[in-house]
């Protein structure tokens, strides 16, 4: 702390501080007050500079933290993208198989072992677990860590809306498959493997069973009207967010 801001305190007044009472008659307050104010100003400026430096350093650290968080999000999103794309392809394949099986049964064609894979596809249970831990971690630190408001909004929309809808759709699917399809499959099929294979006890009975045809149509509808659109929208939103994060990281 230097005293360079005290030009107005002349040297011949220096000793006055030591004996104010003795020189009370000749005491000139104005330079003392100026000196006093200057001294305080120096300390205040010093404290403010120190705090500003601290804030600047904190800002630098937060910027570094932001990059780490965005990197983590980017990695998690890439994994989610792969998982969801794989499941989406499975759903599209399932729809083709259900259509083919339906056509086969409508045409009253005979049973063959290869049909087991088609029966099994009706009994598909596609549950994927997206990774929300980077987002939860971000929320616990404060979403404000992401400085770009538009990017922040995109992140919350994906994790708080799109992923929730995905989970909701999966819950509906789980309820349907386990609640109403499973009992039917357990009583009419053997060698059951979810989405892979199911061998009918009596092919002829199933081929003519309206309940099974309705069940297939229902499963197909859930996949076409709920699952595929939600997966497609989620994948599109992930890709968009990935581009935004990439852009932010390259700034």
């Amino acid at each position, binding site marked *: 702390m230097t005293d360079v801001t005290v030009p107005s305190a002349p040297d011949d007044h220096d000793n006055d501080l030591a004996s104010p009472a003795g020189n009370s008659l000749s005491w000139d307050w104005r330079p003392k007050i100026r000196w006093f104010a200057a001294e305080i100003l120096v300390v205040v400026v010093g404290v403010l500079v120190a705090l500003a430096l601290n804030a600047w350093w904190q800002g630098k650290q937060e910027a570094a933290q932001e990059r780490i968080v965005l990197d983590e999000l980017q990695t998690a999103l890439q994994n989610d993208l792969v998982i969801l794309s794989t499941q989406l392809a499975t759903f599209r394949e399932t729809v083709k198989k259900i259509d083919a099986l339906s056509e086969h049964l409508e045409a009253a064609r005979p049973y063959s072992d290869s049909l087991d894979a088609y029966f099994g596809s009706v009994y598909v249970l596609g549950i994927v677990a997206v990774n929300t831990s980077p987002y939860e971690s971000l929320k616990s630190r404060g979403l404000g860590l992401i400085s770009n408001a538009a990017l922040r909004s995109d992140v919350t929309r994906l994790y708080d809306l799109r992923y929730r*809808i995905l989970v909701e759709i999966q819950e509906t699917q789980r309820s349907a498959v386990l609640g109403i399809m499973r009992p039917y499959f357990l009583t009419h099929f053997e060698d059951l493997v979810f989405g892979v294979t199911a061998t009918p006890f009596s092919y002829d009975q199933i081929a003519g069973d309206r309940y099974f045809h309705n069940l297939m149509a229902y499963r197909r509808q859930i996949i076409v009207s709920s699952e595929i659109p939600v997966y497609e929208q989620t994948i599109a939103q992930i890709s968009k967010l990935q581009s935004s994060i990439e852009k932010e990281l390259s700034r």
Partner: protein
Amino acid sequence: MTDSNAPVPSQPSSKHKRPWTILGRLSKAVREQNWFAVVLELTIVVFGVVIGFQVTAWGQTRADRAEEQDLLQGLRIEFTEVAADLEKQVEKHQRVEQAVAETIDIIANARQDGAPKTSVADTTLAWALIPTTTQFSQGVLDGMLATGRLQLIRDRVLRTALSEWEGVMADVTEDEVTAREMVVFQLEPLLWRLMDARSMREYELLLGTLSPSKLAAKSEITVDTELIGALSSRLYWQRHVIREFTGPQAEAVRILDLLDQSLE
């Protein structure tokens, strides 16, 4: 500045020389037992630090206010969307209610007439079976609750309303889940036994994008007392869900009003 009247012997020319640092002057004053100067130097440091902190606190308060306004803006956008989505969701539930009521009427009339079967429009049946649920994007509010930044909101009434919002919505969403279970576990299996429901499975029926002839298509359904009962339960519950929505709708409007009052 704190030189004594008597010059220091070892530094004859120091009468007009003062140490440059506060610490130097303070130690000099202590050595010379010039307590007035000691107190004065300490006072200057204490005052300086206090003022420095006051300035920082003032800056922090301004930053908090700015952040509060930022959060309020974010909440304003979120709750505007929520209010609009709630309205859309109620409309959707009302359309489902209308479809269920229409289906019940058709089947009940057929039963009165003693007909074993009747026909219901595929679009009506498709809508009657929609198990819709409500989801919102509330990242700003969730983030505030998770990080404790809700405390930045000065309006206590608004703060309370925001912290209770999740519970307000839970009343509706839980009822929607029950409605979904009624459809998936009761109505669907029952219909699969009573009719060929394949033609009403067209997704485009709900979107209204099919050709007029397909949109007008009907499916034959067996007149069944259990089905009327299941549909009546669904109708009762559907109406209950719609009534339950009035709570969140009113609360969303109230929160928007409070947000407007808090926004500068």
